[in-house]
């Protein structure tokens, strides 16, 4: 039951994605194809946003930034160190040796590095990931949803509308040239001209 509750959203989103994809593939009408493409993409956005939701969280807008800044800079001397530490840890670990090309040897992973445990059971990770919050919580106990999927989807939405605009411009020109926006009519017209041309 827990599994169903926790995964129900994904199933709905997948069904929506497939609805959009079905419209794109099945219809022969060019405008409806683009609508289907829009639905498909919007549903993929939902997949991303769904995975970024944190239960009981709020939008990723820091509610008490001045206090947080004070805490990060002066208040908890420990905290400032930690924040800096996170940064150096990552720059030290990933950047000089991106090992993008030699993926099979895992890099020397320092202890306490988040997430380098069994990935097949990703739900068993709480204590590993609470690295900053044990000693010092830069977020002062407020739970936020994950900002990264939001950023990615903002980009994807804009890319989507750009594609749509170009697609619709093409549809308008196709209609002017062929007098139809149905694939079957267009194919027929092409077949005819090919027959006459040769």
């Amino acid at each position, binding site marked *: 039951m827990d599994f169903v509750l926790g995964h129900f959203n994904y199933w709905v989103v997948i069904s929506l*994605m497939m609805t959009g*994809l079905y419209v*794109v593939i099945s219809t022969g009408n*060019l405008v409806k*194809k*683009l609508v289907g*493409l829009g639905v*498909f*993409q919007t549903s*993929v956005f939902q*997949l*991303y946003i769904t*995975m970024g939701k944190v239960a009981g969280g709020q939008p990723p807008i820091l509610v008490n930034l001045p206090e947080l800044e004070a805490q990060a800079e002066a208040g908890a001397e420990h905290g400032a160190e930690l924040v800096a530490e996170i*940064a150096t840890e*990552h*720059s030290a670990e*990933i*950047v*000089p040796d*991106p*090992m*993008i*090309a*030699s*993926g*099979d*040897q*895992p*890099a020397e*992973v320092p202890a306490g590095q*988040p*997430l*380098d445990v*069994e*990935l*097949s059971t*990703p739900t068993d990770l709480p204590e590993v990931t609470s690295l900053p919050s044990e000693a010092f919580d830069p977020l002062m106990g407020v739970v936020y949803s994950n900002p*990264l*999927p939001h950023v*990615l989807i903002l*980009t*994807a939405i804009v*890319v989507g509308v*750009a*594609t749509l605009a*170009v*697609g619709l411009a*093409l*549809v308008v*020109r*196709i209609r002017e*040239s*062929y007098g139809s926006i149905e694939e079957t009519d*267009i194919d027929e017209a*092409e077949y005819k001209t090919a027959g006459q041309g*040769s």
Partner: protein
Amino acid sequence: MSLMSAISSISGLRDLLPHAAALVVVIPLLAGPIAVILAKARLAWLWSVLVAAAAFGLSLVLLGTVLGGETITYEMGNWPAPLGIIYYVDSLNALVISLVSGMALLALLYGWPMVEREIEPKKQAMFFGTFLICLAGLIGVAITGDAFNVFVFLEVSSISTYVLVAMGAGQNRQALTASFNYLILGTIGATFFVIGVGLLYMATGTLNMADISRLLADGDNDRVVRAAFSFIVIGLGLKTAMFPLHTWLPNAYAFSPSMIGVFLASTATKVAFYTLIRFLFSVFHAGAPFETAMFDYVLAPMAITAMIVCSVQASFQPDVRRLLAYSSVAQLGYMLLGLSMGTVAGLSAGLLHMFNHALMKGALFMAVGLATLGLGVIQVSEMRGMGKTMPLTAAGLSIAGLSLMGVPLTAGFVSKYYLVIAALERGWWWAVAAIVVSSVLAIFYIGRMIEAMYLQKPPSHGDDPVIVVRSPILAIVPLYILVAANIWFFFDPSVPKGLADSAATLLLGGGAP
């Protein structure tokens, strides 16, 4: 490499060299909008040539660094890897970037006389601007080390490609439908890719490719990762025109403006193919059971089918450019075959064939564009007598065609040879058989053209042999540069072969096959 040292010796540029990885994308990306502002067609073209030359120079600098045994990392915004986006250059993508920027330069040189005739004058500046953006997008895809950034630049290049293909509508309205089909399938492909990247993010929490790879080291039996693998392969397969997903390609190549046909045929699918390799080998772990099964039972059969079915289709095409386009899908089969062997030798042969194929298809499309310009040729039967009426173009077309067949003394022979060796090493005799069958078919469809050009009489209206336009010298030069490259890389394939070898070794983790 003397060119490289010449460039780096100019002191003013020396400060910029650490930023070469970023500039090779940023310069064309910013030059595109400037070309739009310039508004004058000829000025915009000159500007584009300069920019493409700069990009090519920078990519040679990168290539030189990589040949020296280094890899280059560049953090955008100076943010360290998992937080920020990084650029990453090794021997694999240095080759691809040089290929793309070099072909862009040649296509631009070739393109001016073509564009002048094919595109409305007031749209030419925007056309060149869009072309530069497309170039930047392709290089951006090849150079980035961030999975989501791949998507963004894939779309930069794809959307500009749809537009550029549609510009063929001045010659033939089918360019519009070709572009639309490409847009629909390309966007489905990009969306599949985004789903795959999303699933990878779900499984690892990061978007940096190296970081994903590190976190996936023991995550092979995770179902999310497997689904991600399938979606990324299908998404990039659509962009690569992998066999059953190739339906957008023939018309897109055949009806685009000549210059765009040349550029796309030699770069776009190559970059997508590179991205596929990057994901298959350096993000996912190629040796894992699930991946190996996919290679053996999905990719390899598809590659073989493409090599044979699309060669047959090419043989029956009356339209020259569609013939070449189908042949491109068949040739992609060769590259995929190399990849699916999963050995250093196979992958290296596939990469080498990618490089050589860009050279030969670029030359073939250039020659066909010139033939279209000169004689209004669209169909193979209309090429008769071209050996007399357009001797230079016909000779170039024939040599590039021989290279496509894989005749000795041309580059095409070298990569096919290595491919056969790799297949034998792996014990895939059926793959060798397929290569032979496909090559015989290539002899047939290229032979049709050569036969028409040299053995048939030119068509004549009354007494005068028809010749409409003489080939512009500006367009002949890049054609012969490519033809020369096709011969040069038979005698000295050491640079591309060396890069392909070292890339394959790197990708497969340095182990012997």
